[in-house]
């Protein structure tokens, strides 16, 4: 009689990478629902295109590396990358935008560095930054929330817009972004930033119709929805609170100080926290374990750094939002953060 040899431990908590990833995209549902409610079906088309691209490019990479594609698909990390990029870009960006972005994320940022677990940079954000730098017009053309829009976009229009750049009735994106008052509408952060740079006071800048809610129509609810999903992730112990907590703190503290000491240039706390990609970034993007710091203390610093950099870019940088750049910059700092936040091992003089 002979028996199977195995190494201890012989028992295992059954939570696989696949399950972790599945929870991540399930928790994106509230945010995606809010995006759909305010901006129409575009986000679904982007997600679909992103998924198809991700699955094919992942298979191609695995084939080139001489491995089984199914092995890579099984962990669902490519799905999460694709979905995160899809919800980050403007809902009606032309189809090739998301295809290029996702391919870049999967091929260059992930597989060129050695596949899952080996990449230095957050794939979704690296893809986003590539797109933002290469195609600034398309990447900043966010649609107007539907309640303010002159033209409503139905599902067929969405398909047509993403596919050809025009709705069925022949409007292009630029026309669609025109609000009821006839002026082109920017995203809340973009609008405030432009107005502040034209020496308007924050009160004047916030007088526009898009700011009828606290932090911009639509955007506030999208952020709150992602916050809800993010809290679910923490509750399910998929992520720890350290990165999102650090990020929000790192963003909130300087913005409060700015409001106190230089109110003329301050974007304001509510706008910082509830506009742009803040909540998506804090709970879904910065928490990518591969490219984040390792220890809990390190994660806190990592989050603080992203929050602070985001604040700096939003306030003084050339782009309206800064989450993507901040995440990539913080990714670069991870080895240093890890080096200085290594926990003191048992028996090495640490406090118990």
């Amino acid at each position, binding site marked *: 009689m*002979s*028996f199977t*040899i*195995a*190494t201890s431990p012989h028992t295992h908590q059954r939570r696989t990478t696949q399950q972790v990833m599945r929870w991540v995209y399930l928790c994106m549902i509230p945010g995606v629902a809010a995006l759909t409610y305010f901006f129409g079906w575009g986000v679904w088309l982007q997600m679909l295109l992103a998924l198809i691209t991700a699955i094919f490019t992942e298979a191609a990479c695995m084939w080139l590396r001489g491995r089984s594609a199914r092995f890579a698909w099984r962990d669902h990390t490519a799905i999460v990358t694709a979905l995160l990029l899809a919800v980050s870009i403007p809902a009606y960006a032309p189809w090739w935008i998301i295809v290029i972005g996702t391919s870049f994320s999967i091929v260059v940022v992930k597989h060129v560095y050695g596949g899952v677990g080996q990449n230095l940079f957050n794939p979704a954000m690296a893809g986003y930054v590539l797109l933002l730098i290469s195609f600034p017009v398309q990447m900043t053309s966010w649609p107007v929330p539907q309640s303010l829009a002159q033209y409503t976009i139905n599902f067929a229009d969405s398909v047509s817009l993403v596919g050809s750049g025009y709705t069925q009735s022949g409007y292009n994106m630029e026309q669609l972004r025109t609000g009821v008052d006839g002026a082109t509408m920017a995203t809340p952060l973009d609008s405030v930033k432009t107005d502040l740079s034209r020496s308007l006071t924050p009160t004047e800048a916030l007088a526009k119709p898009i700011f009828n809610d606290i932090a911009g129509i639509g955007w506030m609810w999208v952020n709150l929805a992602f916050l809800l999903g993010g809290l679910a992730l923490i509750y399910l112990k998929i992520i720890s609170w350290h990165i999102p907590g650090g990020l929000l703190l790192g963003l909130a503290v300087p913005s409060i100080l700015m409001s106190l000491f230089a109110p003329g240039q301050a974007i304001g706390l509510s706008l910082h926290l509830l506009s742009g990609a803040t909540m998506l970034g804090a709970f879904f993007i910065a928490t990518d374990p591969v490219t984040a710091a390792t220890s809990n203390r390190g994660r806190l610093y990592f989050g603080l750094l992203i929050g602070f950099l985001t604040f700096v870019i939003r306030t003084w940088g050339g782009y309206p939002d800064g989450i993507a750049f901040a995440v990539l910059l913080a990714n670069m700092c991870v080895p240093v953060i890890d080096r200085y936040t290594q926990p003191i091992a048992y028996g090495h003089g640490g406090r118990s």
Partner: protein
Amino acid sequence: MSVLTAILVFGGLALLFGLILGFAAVRFKVESDPIVDQIDAILPQTQCGQCGYPGCRPYAQAIANGDAINKCPPGGDATIKELADLMGVEAKPLDSAHGAEDVKKVAVIREDECIGCTKCIQACPVDAILGAAKHMHTVIAHECTGCDLCVEPCPVDCIDMVPVPTKPETWQWDLQQIPVKMVATADQES
């Protein structure tokens, strides 16, 4: 005039940095081990002579004088890598002209065949063989480096090189190599 100023500035700077560097060279001089000792510490001390030198220290001397670092089969790739780090050169694969990396072995004399000629005793580089003329010889197993040098001189070919057996204490957790079939237990043999 401005040209003169520039020359003076750069000349002054050059002088200043030169002084700093010179001071640093004297003040922070690193007293390191002689390189031969460092190389010798890396070599496996098998004293087998497969490198073409009569022992590890002579080879260390040779490396210090610029000989290749890939001539040591008992050390294998691990030793070559360490030597490459120390010498600041590229790690090369083992030079097959000097032999191949092998499992660790130990010499065993088939004692009933030994004629007591003492030839192996003279060949042993680490004095790990005991015996006297016309008396049976034996290998002190834990001092034997497995260098193979005693095998050739033996006129009656009574020395075997056997692989060092793995003991539970020295086991390397090779789970795949556990013999799953039954071992002969003592009572089955008797």
